[in-house]
């Protein structure tokens, strides 16, 4: 294997790691918020560029990592969302009293974990990536530990995530015991030859562990609490980069290994998908905290996306890619607005919906961003979300998964109720209990630009989705063994 190719493939990971180390050293030397942000943004930007460059060398396989289409796409999404989170965090921590710099360190570590995870082709790298992704998140979520909710979110996530990790590990161990393989493709191959009860149980436990990270019903209960309590940027990262990475991993698992869809697992996935899309939406119905609401909505969205894993054929890879691409900017925009509104004043995040009452008449463009994000999450045309939903339904129709299609329709009908409620709140005139507001010059700041950019991206992808489709198509087409 020629070294330069390998170097190109590894470059993003190396860059992220290097940035993290630089930051660590820099913080030890001198605390400078702006500089920290600048360095991490620069590092992430370079990594993102490198990731895009790395597309040239796919597919490339090493014993632990596989650089293929989904990995590249996942890497790009993870890095882009991390970048956005970093910029948003800059705004968020503006008024923060304690040390702010370590947050970026954690963020970068987590991003590195994500990069590993999306490319992993070995149980060890999978495990490493996943833990590297999750572990810093504990810290990030509890970062504002003076705020009781943040602490609570951290503790909850820590305990439950560790439990999930334990399930995952035990599942891995059982699979290993069954097959004697740790490399995923070999493992799958031997599962095809004959899967005993231990192996299947192991697969089930792994599914539970990964399902937790994707907050699939019934492993979803932590989601709203953690989203609500965690500081905005941490929740954003959790909702975007973390979930994207785990989903990409699962996508590659089911795509590269048809054995993963043995009848039983397939049925389990099917049930989980249907349950997630319905339960997530039902839970969100009358939610009046925006961050919780986004948590519930993410449950539902990943429920929809499980359809991709259930089908795992034909359009599936492309659909998964497209849906992720459409999901990320919309979520970023929604969280971005929350962060911007929260950032101006200290204290709890501005999660409660009543803060947003009549926002339009004060901050029309910010409201437009939020509206676009909500519409996109609801899957209304002219937003990227519509293309995603279109793809999903197309996939369901193609694969004759009628019940899941019905589930998607029912789910999105229910979801409209709460998305629309949020939207209309933004436009109502009556004053709320008390207002929180973004700073007047929000749009001129980096965070504002990110949010606007995300919204514009949502609209652009909704109106002209061809490039996105091409990207997802390309990513789905190259899957390493």
């Amino acid at each position, binding site marked *: 294997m020629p070294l330069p190719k390998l170097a190109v493939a590894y470059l993003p990971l190396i860059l992220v790691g290097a940035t993290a180390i630089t930051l660590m050293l820099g913080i030890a030397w001198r605390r400078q918020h702006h500089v920290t942000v600048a360095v991490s943004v620069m590092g992430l930007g370079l990594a993102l560029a490198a990731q895009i460059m790395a597309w040239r060398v796919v597919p490339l396989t090493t014993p632990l990592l596989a650089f293929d289409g989904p990995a590249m796409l996942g890497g790009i999404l993870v890095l882009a969302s991390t970048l956005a989170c970093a910029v948003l965090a800059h705004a968020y921590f503006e008024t923060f009293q304690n040390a702010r710099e370590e947050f970026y360190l954690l963020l970068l570590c987590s991003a590195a974990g994500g990069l590993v995870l999306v490319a992993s082709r070995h149980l060890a790298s999978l495990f490493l990536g996943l833990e590297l992704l999750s572990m810093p998140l504990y810290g990030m979520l509890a970062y504002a530990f003076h705020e009781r909710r943040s602490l609570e979110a951290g*503790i*909850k996530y820590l*305990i*439950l995530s560790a*439990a*999930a990790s334990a*399930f995952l590990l035990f599942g891995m161990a059982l699979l290993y015991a069954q097959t004697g393989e740790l490399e995923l493709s070999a493992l799958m191959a031997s599962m095809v030859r004959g899967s005993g*009860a231990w192996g*299947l*149980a192991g697969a*089930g*436990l792994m*599914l*539970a562990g990964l399902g*937790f990270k994707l907050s699939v*019903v*019934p*492993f979803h*209960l*932590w989601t*709203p*609490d953690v989203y609500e309590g965690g500081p905005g940027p941490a929740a954003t990262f959790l909702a975007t980069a973390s979930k994207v990475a785990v989903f990409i991993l699962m996508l590659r698992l089911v795509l590269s290994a048809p054995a993963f869809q043995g*009848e*039983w697992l397939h*049925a*389990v996935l099917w049930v989980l998908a249907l349950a997630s899309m319905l*339960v997530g939406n*039902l*839970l969100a*119905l*009358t939610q009046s905290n925006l961050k919780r609401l986004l948590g519930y909505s993410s449950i539902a969205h990943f429920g929809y996306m499980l359809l991709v894993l259930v089908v795992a054929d034909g359009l599936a890879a492309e659909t998964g890619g497209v849906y992720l691409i459409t999901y990320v900017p919309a979520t970023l925009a929604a969280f971005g607005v929350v962060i911007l509104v929260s950032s101006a004043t200290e204290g709890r995040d501005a999660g409660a919906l009543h803060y947003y009452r009549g926002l339009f008449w004060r901050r029309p463009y910010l409201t437009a961003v939020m509206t676009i994000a909500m519409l996109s999450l609801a899957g209304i045309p002219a937003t990227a979300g519509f293309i995603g939903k279109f793809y999903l339904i197309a996939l369901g129709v193609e694969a004759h998964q009628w019940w899941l299609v019905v589930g998607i329709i029912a789910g999105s009908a*229910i979801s409209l109720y709460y998305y629309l409620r949020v939207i209309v709140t933004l436009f109502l005139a009556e004053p709320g209990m008390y207002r929180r507001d973004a700073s007047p010059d929000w749009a001129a700041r980096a965070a504002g630009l990110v949010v606007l950019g995300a919204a514009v991206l949502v609209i652009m992808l909704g109106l002209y989705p061809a490039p996105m489709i091409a990207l997802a198509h390309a990513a789905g087409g190259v899957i390493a063994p």
Partner: protein
Amino acid sequence: MMEHATTLSIAQPTTLLPLTFLLPLVGTLILAFSRGQLSYRASATVGTASIGLAALTTAALALGFAAAGPQQLTLWTWIAVGDFTPGISLALDGLSLTMLGVITGVGFFIHLFAAWYMRGEDGITRFYTYMNLFVFSMVLLVLGDNLLLLFLGWEGVGLCSYLLIGYYYTHSANGWAGFKAFVITRIGDVFLALGMFLLFTRLGTLNIAEILELAPQAWQAGDTTVELAAFLLLGGAMGKSAQLPLHTWLADAMAGPTPVSALIHAATMVTAGVYLIARMHGIFELAPTALYVTGVIGALTLLMAGFAALAQTDIKRVLAYSTMSQIGYMFLALGVGAYDTAIFHLMTHAFFKALLFLSAGAVIISCHHEQDMRRLGGLWRKLPLPYAGFMVGGAALAALPLISAGFYSKDEILWQALAADQQGLLIAGLVGALLTSLYTLRLIIGTFHGTAKSDNARHAETGRGLAHGLPLVVLAGLSTFVGAWITPPLAEVLPAGPGDATHVGHSSLELLAAATALGGMALGVWLFGLRRGWLRLANRGPGAGLWHLWHHAWGFDLVFDWTLVRPYRLTVWLLKSDLFDGLFRLLARLVRLLHLGLSRTQSGRVRGYAITMVAGVALILLSLALVIQGT
């Protein structure tokens, strides 16, 4: 629209033809868009003059008709889709000319009279707007050469009738009376519409002349389809002409101003059904059953209404039931195939019934809007002209032999019934004649003789002026044998009736009819005038019951109330909360319940979350165990 309208080369009279409906239309438009700027005088002038000019136009047309015969004029094609090409096109023949004469001629005098009658009322402009619009629609009804245009007029007159019945809108009851009239006639209209659909579907045309030409080729006499078509047309006619059982609206329609009753609910609109059947006689000729039923309905109606008229106390309601009864005669005539006789009676009836209504109107205005017979009386000295009107009109209504117009037409009907060998109908007609004499006498005696029974009657004021006098005089003249001299030019349009006037039986029937009428009058004088035996009969035992029954016109209103109105109201009430929508609301409630239930799992406790997670894993493993067991 007129410029590109006339495509064919037109003989002189035809160009006048559109004027008959354009003049009233112009009147309507002027009045409607005056936005309250016109004075009473101006409104009345515009409203009356437009009809007067239309009447002159009709006279001109009649002269032209004598010379040139039937005319046809297409203004423009209304709708053209495939075969479906009804035009806005007019046809003038003897029948429509007769109708046109009645409408514009009698209509003009009624308009004129209204100028006197409506003095002091608000909204005279509105009144004349509706009246002119009515004449416009009625003219289109009779001139339309296809069924759709006829239907246009047909519905238009219904609307005007509705509006004019509810003219005094501040009393809800008047509005509801109009409502009732419209809805019941609309039921008839639906039959007519269905008849149109059927005829068009089978014959491929709506043109009346073509239908009459094609029908005998398409159908044998007595064919089910043509019977059905005839029955449907009959349904339409029954609604409009207030025939059993769709008659209940007419008595309530008296809520409108009296000139309206005279024009719409006596002279013209209610006879549209007769016109329709006469117009579509070719269909009825092919449908003997329907034709027979027509006669039977007429007979039943004339009896039912005759009895009901006996027991009314409101002079206008007496006249209303008498109108039903007289139209019953016309239907009877139609039913025996004597179409021309029916039209002849239609014409004479228009004269004398308009006269009666206008006279009644004169009485009502003179007596300060008192129209209850029980509170009138002794007016003949104070109101000589209305009294004379009542006498002449009553004579015609009761078919006083030789000198009244009614005698000639009604006698002809009875003769045709005999000639057609319909003894049942003949007997009904004779009994009806007796009843007619009775209630006419009761009306006249009750209103004009005896003593004045209320202050309103004691202080009656005599009406004055040309608008008051001229219509009464002219119509009175027409109600005598003079009116019977007018022979409608129907020979070419309608087939001759079964009877032939030169037949031997004719004169003996004439004698019988005359005897019936005179006997009825004598009985009436005896009952109501000399002995007042009536009151004793009506106040005791079975007499009181009959009185009650007849006073409420055999209780049809009650029957309809219980079979139609109440069930409909009940349905409305039952569905008020939108049943089907309720299903979806239930669904929404279910979703909300699920939401609440699921929200309870979101307890906030880590241990709870962990337990759920473990339970999920356990379920997954359990399902695995089941699968493994299964294989």
